[in-house]
């Protein structure tokens, strides 16, 4: 079987560039701790990019910067991150507990979309019967789906996902992965997803960013040139073994 791991990017179309020269936090004793250093990568437009790397290497910090939640860094990110409609799914669903599922989704809509019919979207994420439920009445998997619906409701140009399927059982997580893939099939977006799970990345992504230990920089940008039916099972495992050989310790975490 031919499994190629290409080290260069060859995707046509626009690229969103991210160039974070340095980002540090103050430790408890006041000394600065470098979290990111010379983290440079490009996101191909309307493609799915996954970012993997060791635990605590600064992936969530990077997303915070891209989402405009953290302006305290040195470097430059593509102005598209400030201008485009960005949908986000955080590690915790972050639904407002005092609003119903539907209100949570509607509140995120820009004024121009305020009266959108959301039935199709709720059906797609399997929450058609739970639109009037409060988040406390949902399981974690359902809350994650509601968060996914919120991110898709705004018809995002950029979609940022921070380990959206973590701490779910594998069956539920797989069902959610399929839902995400089908939502993106209907409406493509430039996706950046952080994950610890290389199998999840290979299953979903077109493009892979491998980050180093802290302070994080991008060790490799890899195209996942696998056909849709080779995304799981033996072809995917072979691809992962090859990747692990090239970047020991950073792929299989």
């Amino acid at each position: 079987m031919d499994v190629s791991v290409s080290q260069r990017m060859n995707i046509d179309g626009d690229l969103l560039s991210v160039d974070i020269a340095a980002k540090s936090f103050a430790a408890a004793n006041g000394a600065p701790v470098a979290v990111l250093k010379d983290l440079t990568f490009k996101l191909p437009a309307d493609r799915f990019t996954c970012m993997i790397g060791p635990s605590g290497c600064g992936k969530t910090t990077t997303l915070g910067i891209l989402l405009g939640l953290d302006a305290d860094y040195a470097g430059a990110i593509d102005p598209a991150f400030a201008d485009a409609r960005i949908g986000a799914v955080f590690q915790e669903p972050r639904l407002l507990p005092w609003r119903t599922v539907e209100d949570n989704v509607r509140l995120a809509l820009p004024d121009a979309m305020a009266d959108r019919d959301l039935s199709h979207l709720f059906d797609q994420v399997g929450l058609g019967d739970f639109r009037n439920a409060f988040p406390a009445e949902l399981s974690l998997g359902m809350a994650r789906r509601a968060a996914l619906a919120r991110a898709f409701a705004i018809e995002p140009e950029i979609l940022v996902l921070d380990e959206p399927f973590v701490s779910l059982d594998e069956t539920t997580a797989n069902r959610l992965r399929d839902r995400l893939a089908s939502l993106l099939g209907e409406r493509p977006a430039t996706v950046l997803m952080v994950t610890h799970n290389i199998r999840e990345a290979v299953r979903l992504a077109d493009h892979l960013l491998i980050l180093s230990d802290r302070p994080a920089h991008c060790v490799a940008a890899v195209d996942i040139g696998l056909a849709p039916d080779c995304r799981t099972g033996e072809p995917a495992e072979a691809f992962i073994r090859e990747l692990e050989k090239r970047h020991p310790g950073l792929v299989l975490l």
Partner: protein
Amino acid sequence: MGTDATGPGGLSPLAARAISIAGFFALWWLASLALGPRLCPDPLSVVVFLGREMVSGELPYHLAITLIRVAAAFVIAMAVGTAIGLFMGRSTAGNFLLEPWIILLLNAPALVIIVLAYIWIGLVDSAAILAVALNKIPNVAVTIREGARAMNPHYFQMARVFRFSRARTLRHVTLPQLQPYIAAAARSGLALIWKIVLVVELLGRPNGVGFQIHLYFQTFDVRAILAYTIAFAAIMLAIEYLVVQPVEKRAYRWRPRPA
């Protein structure tokens, strides 16, 4: 055995409340027997007096005036106190800036604030309401400040990413998180405010429950004093059961109910 809906001894909440209120009147009646009608008139004579004042229109008039003052001072104190508390809780600089003022106001005797307001502004309603509100604002601010510090930054990050407007953030993210603190401030606020309104009326207004009680104090009419007190307490009880509790129930409907 009692079920979940019943209290100690298997009483329904309604029965428990009825017994509590009946006990109060029984105790009162015993006191009137011990002290005599001049010092402590019995409940019936107070109720009869209450009815007479009601028919003459005297009691509703003074009650309404006092209620309007309570409402005005309450609204001002809650709005200003919440804004200040939010500012102090969200901004370290704001906290340092305003904390000395809050401590000063918290510790200033109500009487001093009332007297100064009357001297500087005059014996008018605006001075009376301002004095009452100033007495309550620091309590509200301190309570809301605690609430503002306990707010979850995750929700604000979500609101920023999805570009919530300021108004939308305030209404759907900030205020719901502050709701328990606002409820606590409102409940203790209503009780404090109506007590201070009576003092303000006694010192410088020609009407209201406080003025009437002062009048009857001078003629040593305990029956009238009790009648006005009872009437006002009944209204506050009605506000608690008919307004405050239903509003709270609605505000908390998203919480998972205990099984």
